[in-house]
């Protein structure tokens, strides 16, 4: 799919994944409906890379992560982990796979059992998977605590004695205990203080270098995603709308939704922040129980309005198509990517993001 990471083998393959939750009866139809949290997404995670999934809350990114962890069963579609189809694995095989795929959750205040000491929390995966003797586990725990930068005496304490950042370190130590191939991190730093986030991200990237980990990182913060990922998938209403190498996505977004997201990301330059033109999406995200026909984004798309409401947007769902012919890599699902490329909205957004307002007279005199 992507050019540079195409060489390394695929670790996780998600094919046409759908996760629908049964919902109550619709008020008008009276029929039992479904919340289509994830509605047909396809992507792969390559060994050694960090793939980011971004989107607004409710777009299905967490559901996707949970489906890969097999905490939920897909309604349709297939997830393969290292070639093994997760929908047909036996309990025994699933145990073996779970050893190789460990989660880090968003909120370290709720993801650690408050009644266990740190030692028992970190050792839990070892106990579940019957690894080592008690003494070996103890040694492994202190090794892990050291790896994630916690003092050795942390082992005997309970989670409530730690700060958010330290707790997330504990969660990371737990995820590392079995030396997994893949770590799925669902918003790993969004519950933490801003000052702590960089530390945790650095820790994650150090661990990746040291232990050849593969990451799937779920986030809504675009700046963070840019910092840590190799490729980024943008999700909207249960669909993947764009999946590109990180720098390509940030330098040359090809989906109107991606452009809108980038345009709403805060930028450090206060003057530019004050004068920039944001793309304001109208209305709310439609309900995933009754998604719009055609392109899911068409009801809020700024580009569609500009192009004079082409019928195709509401009639036909755009497929994820490669963007190689535009001299870029990755895939995008839009009927008019070239119109995105030519739009002044995109230009404005990118200029604001990079901070180099070439045409601005104030450039160079900014204090």
């Amino acid at each position: 799919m992507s050019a540079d990471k195409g060489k390394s083998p695929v670790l996780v393959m998600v094919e046409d994944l759908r996760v629908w939750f049964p919902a109550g009866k619709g008020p008008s139809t009276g029929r039992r409906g479904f919340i289509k949290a994830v509605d047909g997404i396809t992507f792969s995670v390559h060994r050694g890379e960090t793939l980011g999934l971004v989107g607004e809350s409710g777009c299905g990114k967490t559901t996707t992560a949970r489906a890969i962890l097999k905490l939920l069963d897909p309604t349709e579609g297939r997830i393969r982990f290292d070639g093994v189809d997760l929908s047909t694995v036996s309990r025994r095989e699933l145990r073996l796979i779970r050893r190789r795929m460990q989660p880090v959750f968003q909120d370290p205040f709720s993801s650690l059992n408050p009644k266990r000491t740190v030692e028992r929390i970190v050792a839990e995966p070892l106990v579940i998977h019957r690894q080592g003797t008690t003494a070996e586990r103890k040694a492994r725990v202190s090794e892990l605590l050291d790896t994630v930068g916690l003092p050795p005496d942390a082992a005997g304490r309970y989670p409530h004695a730690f700060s958010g950042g330290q707790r997330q370190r504990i969660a990371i130590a737990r995820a590392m205990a079995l030396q997994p191939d893949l770590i799925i991190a669902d918003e790993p730093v969004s519950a933490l203080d801003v000052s702590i986030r960089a530390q945790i991200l650095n820790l994650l990237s150090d661990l990746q270098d040291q232990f050849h980990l593969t990451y799937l990182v779920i986030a809504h913060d675009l700046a963070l995603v840019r910092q840590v990922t190799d490729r980024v998938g943008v999700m909207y209403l249960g669909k993947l709308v764009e999946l590109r190498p990180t720098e390509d996505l940030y330098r040359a977004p090809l989906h109107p939704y991606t452009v809108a997201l980038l345009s709403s990301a805060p930028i450090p330059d206060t003057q530019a922040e004050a004068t920039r033109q944001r793309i304001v999406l109208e209305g709310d995200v439609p309900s995933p129980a009754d998604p719009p026909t055609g392109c899911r984004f068409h009801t809020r798309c700024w580009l569609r309005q500009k192009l004079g409401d082409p019928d195709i947007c509401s009639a036909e769902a755009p497929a994820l198509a490669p963007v190689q012919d535009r001299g870029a890599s990755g895939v995008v699902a839009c009927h008019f990517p070239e119109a995105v490329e030519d739009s002044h909205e995109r230009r404005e957004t990118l200029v604001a993001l990079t901070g180099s307002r070439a045409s601005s007279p104030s450039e160079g005199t900014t204090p």
Partner: protein
Amino acid sequence: MTVGRLRRLEEAIVPTRLGTTLESLRPRTFLETYGLVVILMIVAAVAAAPLVAPDPLAQDLTSALAGPSGEHWLGTDNLGRDLWSRILYGGRVSLVIGVFVLLTAGAVGVLYGAVSGYAGGMVDAVMMRIVDIFLSFPSIMLALLISAALGPTVRNVIIAISAAWWPVYARLVRGQVIVVKEREFVTASRALGAGPIRNLFRTVLPNSFGVMKTIFVLDVGYAILAGSTLGFLGLGVSPPTPEWGYMIREALQYPTHWWFILSPGLALLLFVSAINFAGGIVTRSVYEVPGR
């Protein structure tokens, strides 16, 4: 204020479980201290009964219904049996009933409720309707019926009261389990590879006991009361085994001999109220100590 907060924080990171527990279990108000002391005294007296009291079954009709004296500290009953002795031995019966009802009803109720809440769906619905059937009887009625059917022994009284009580625990535990099983560390444990049994018993249940602890302690008192109620109604432990409820029933026939009804009545009141007062300690320890 600040110093107090700091001290609390230090306590919060006390690494040993036992240390934290003991600290939190220290009585802090007068009533808690009183309750704890009374309980300890009663338990000690009841345990030492053979050493400090005569045979509770020895009849002496010549000194029947005698008032308190140097020989019979609390007087005697209608058959001339020593009331002090019968109170102490009766306390043994009450204590055994209280503790074993809690263990039996607790074990059954916790297991049932935990499975029901964790399984969810249809299993839960069916299991809870069965609980509803049990709860639709007044519990004392149910206990009476079962006790009458099984016969009047200590063991059967325990079974009868437990049968009437376990549904309350089942419901409580189920509610807690449903809340706790949605918490993220349970999901985390599942994602780490823990199976349902390990997850329920090692992760969910230990975090579902907070409210239960409080109720358990208070319920020891109510179980003793329930045992006495059965005795009072004539369907409890059979005579001549001394039992407070049955003693009160007998004493009702002799309203002019005040010491006869006063002793078991007061014993019951003292014991049950002391348990209630001391129950506050457990309640506090559950809600105050972080991580408990």
